[in-house]
C-alpha cells in the first residue's frame, strides 16, 4: 500500500520535471536544469568506476572524445550527430582500451595520476593537431536549425534530451551496481585479494567498468558539444569542469552509491552558478574560495556525503524504489 503511494509520488515528480519547460519560459532556468541534468549524467557515469574503488580524474578525456568525434563528423563530413553517436562510442571505447593498458596494474593514487596524464596527452594533441581540431581557436557548430542537426532555437528540446540522458545514465549505473559486474566491482573495492580468491578477474571487471563509464561519458560529451556550440580544448578537456567536477559531485553526494551522485549534482550545479553570480561579481575568486571551503568541510565532517545525512530517510527511500537489502 505504502509502496503504491510512493510510486505515485515518484510518477508525479517525473511528470513535474517533464512540465518544467512549459511553465518556465526563461531559458536561463532551463539552462540551469539542463546543465544539472548533464552533470547528473556525468557524475553517474563517473561513479560506475567508483564502485570498484577507483578514482578517475581524467573523464574530461572521454567527454572531449565524444564531443570532438560527434562535432567533427558533423562539421567536416555533414554526418548527423545521431549517426555520429556510434562514432563517439567507438572512439571512446578505443580510448578506454588504450587507457586500460597502464591502468591494469595500478590502483589508488597511481591510478588517478594515470588518468590525469592520459587526459593531458589528449588535450595537448587536440591543441597541436590544428588541421583537424582547429587547435585552441576552436570549432563552431553552425546554426542550422533542426532535430537532425541537434540545433534548436528554444531551450526545451535540449532540456528533454539532457533529462533523458540523466535518467538513462542513472538507470545504467543502477543496473551496473546490482548486476554481477557491480557485485564484483564492490568486492574488488573492499578487498582485492578476497575478490580474487573468489575467482573474480579483477582486471576484467575494472576494464569493463572503465569502458561503460567512458562510452557513457562520451555520449554525454557529444550532446554537450551541440548544446554549447563552441568546441575548444581548453573547455572540453578542462580538468576543473569535466574531470574534477563529477568526482566532487559524487563525493559531496555520496560516492559509490546510486543516488549520491544525483544528489551531489543537483546540489552542486546550481550552487556553482549561484556562487559565481552572487560572490564572483563582488570579489573575483571569492566564489571558488567558498567552493574550496565547502569541499574541505564536506570531506572532514560528512565523509559519506550528503547521502549519509539522509540515512534515516535513505532506508525508507530504498524501500520506496523497491530496493531490498544491500545498503549502499
Amino acid at each position, binding site marked *: 500500500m505504502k509502496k503504491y503511494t510512493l510510486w505515485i509520488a515518484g510518477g508525479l515528480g517525473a511528470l513535474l520535471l517533464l512540465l518544467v519547460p512549459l511553465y518556465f519560459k526563461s531559458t536561463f532556468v532551463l539552462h540551469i536544469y539542463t546543465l544539472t541534468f548533464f552533470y547528473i549524467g556525468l557524475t553517474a557515469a563517473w561513479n560506475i568506476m567508483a564502485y570498484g574503488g577507483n578514482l578517475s580524474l581524467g573523464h574530461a578525456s572521454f567527454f572531449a572524445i565524444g564531443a570532438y568525434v560527434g562535432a567533427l563528423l558533423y562539421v567536416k563530413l555533414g554526418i548527423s550527430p545521431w549517426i555520429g553517436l556510434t562514432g563517439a562510442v567507438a572512439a571512446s571505447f578505443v580510448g578506454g582500451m588504450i587507457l586500460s593498458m597502464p591502468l591494469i*596494474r595500478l590502483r589508488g593514487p*597511481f591510478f588517478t595520476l594515470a588518468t590525469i596524464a592520459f587526459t593531458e596527452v589528449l588535450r595537448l594533441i587536440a591543441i597541436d593537431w590544428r588541421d583537424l581540431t582547429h587547435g585552441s581557436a576552436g570549432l563552431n557548430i553552425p546554426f542550422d536549425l533542426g532535430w537532425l542537426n541537434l540545433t534548436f532555437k528554444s531551450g526545451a528540446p535540449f532540456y528533454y534530451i539532457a533529462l533523458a540522458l540523466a535518467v538513462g545514465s542513472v538507470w545504467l549505473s543502477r543496473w551496473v551496481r546490482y548486476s554481477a559486474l557491480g557485485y564484483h566491482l564492490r568486492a574488488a573495492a573492499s578487498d582485492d585479494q578476497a575478490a580474487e580468491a573468489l575467482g573474480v578477474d579483477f582486471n576484467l571487471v575494472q576494464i569493463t567498468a572503465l569502458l561503460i563509464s567512458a562510452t557513457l561519458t562520451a555520449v554525454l560529451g557529444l550532446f554537450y558539444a551541440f548544446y554549447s556550440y563552441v568546441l575548444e580544448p581548453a573547455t572540453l578537456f578542462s580538468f576543473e569542469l569535466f574531470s574534477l567536477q563529477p568526482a566532487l559531485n559524487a563525493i559531496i553526494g555520496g560516492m559509490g552509491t546510486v543516488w549520491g551522485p544525483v544528489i551531489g549534482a543537483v546540489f552542486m550545479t546550481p550552487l556553482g552558478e549561484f556562487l559565481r553570480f552572487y560572490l564572483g561579481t563582488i*570579489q573575483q575568486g571569492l566564489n571558488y574560495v567558498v567552493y574550496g571551503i565547502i*569541499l574541505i568541510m564536506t570531506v572532514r565532517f560528512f565523509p559519506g556525503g550528503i547521502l549519509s545525512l539522509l540515512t534515516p530517510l535513505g532506508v525508507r527511500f530504498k524501500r520506496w524504489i523497491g530496493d531490498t537489502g544491500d545498503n549502499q
Partner: protein
Amino acid sequence: MDFYIQVLISGLLLGGIYALISIGLNLIFGVVRILNFAHGELVMLAMYGTFWLYKLYDLDPYLSLVVVLPAMFLFGVVLQRFILQPVLTTSGVMKMFTTVGISILMQNLALILWKGDFRAVQTFYSMSTIKFSGLIISIPRLVAFGAALLSIILLYLFLKYTYVGKALRAIVEDHATARLMGITVERHYLLAFGLGALFSALGGTLMMPFSSVYPTIGGPFTALAFVIVVLGGLGSMGGTFLAGLFIGVIEAFAGTFVSPGLKEAIYFVIFLLVLMVRPQGLFGMGRGTEEIGLK
C-alpha cells in the same frame, strides 16, 4: 654539436629545479601518503613571499630564503596538523580531495589578495650568464641547479644518518610497523610535510630571479612533480633527482626537435609507459608502494 650540448645544458638546468620541487612532493607523498594536489600552490606561495619581500623591503631573492623557508616550513606543518591530520584516517580519495580543496582555496585567495597580475623580480644578476666556447649558461639557473644538488645531498645525508631521518625512512616503508617501534608517526608527518613545503619553497624562491609568479602558476608544477616522483620512485631522493634531470632533458630535446607545444605531452606519455612497464619507478625503490596502489 655545440647546439646539442646547449640544449642538453638547458634541459639539465631546468631539471634541477624540477627535482627540487619534486623532492618536496616525494617526502609528502612517501611519508604521509597523501597525493598532494596543492603542491604547486606551495611553490606559488613561496614565490609570492619572495616577490613581496623584494617589493616591500627590497630584499634580494636569495636573502629572502632566510624568511621564506622557515615560514613555509611552518605553513606546511600547520596545513598538515589542522587540515590534513583530521582526515588522515579516511580513504585516500578523501585525503586527495582535501588537498584539491586546499589548492582551489589557495589559488583563489592569492587571486583576491594579489590580483591576477604576473609579478617578477628584477635583480642585477637576473640576466647574467657565463659564456664559454659558444655555450651560454644562465647564472641564476646554475645557482638553482647547484642548490638543488646540494639540498638533495643534504636531505640524503639527513635521511641516511640522523635518527629522525631513519625513522622517516621507516615510515615511508611501513608506517604501521614504525608505530610498533614507538615511532610517533603523526609527529613525523608534520615534519615531512614541513620539509616538503620547505623544499618546494626553495625551488620557488630560486626560480624568482628568472621567472614570474601569478595565482595559477602552481598547477603545472603539481602535475610535473607527480610525474617525476613516480618516475624516480617513492622514497628515493636520488631517483627523484635523476628523474627530474631526465624530464628536464626530455623536455628540452622534445621541445627543440619535435615541437614546443608537445613537450609536455611527451613526458606524460613516458610517464604512462613507465606506469605500464615498471610501475615501481625507473630508478626507484618502489618498496611499500603496494599499499598505495602498485601491484
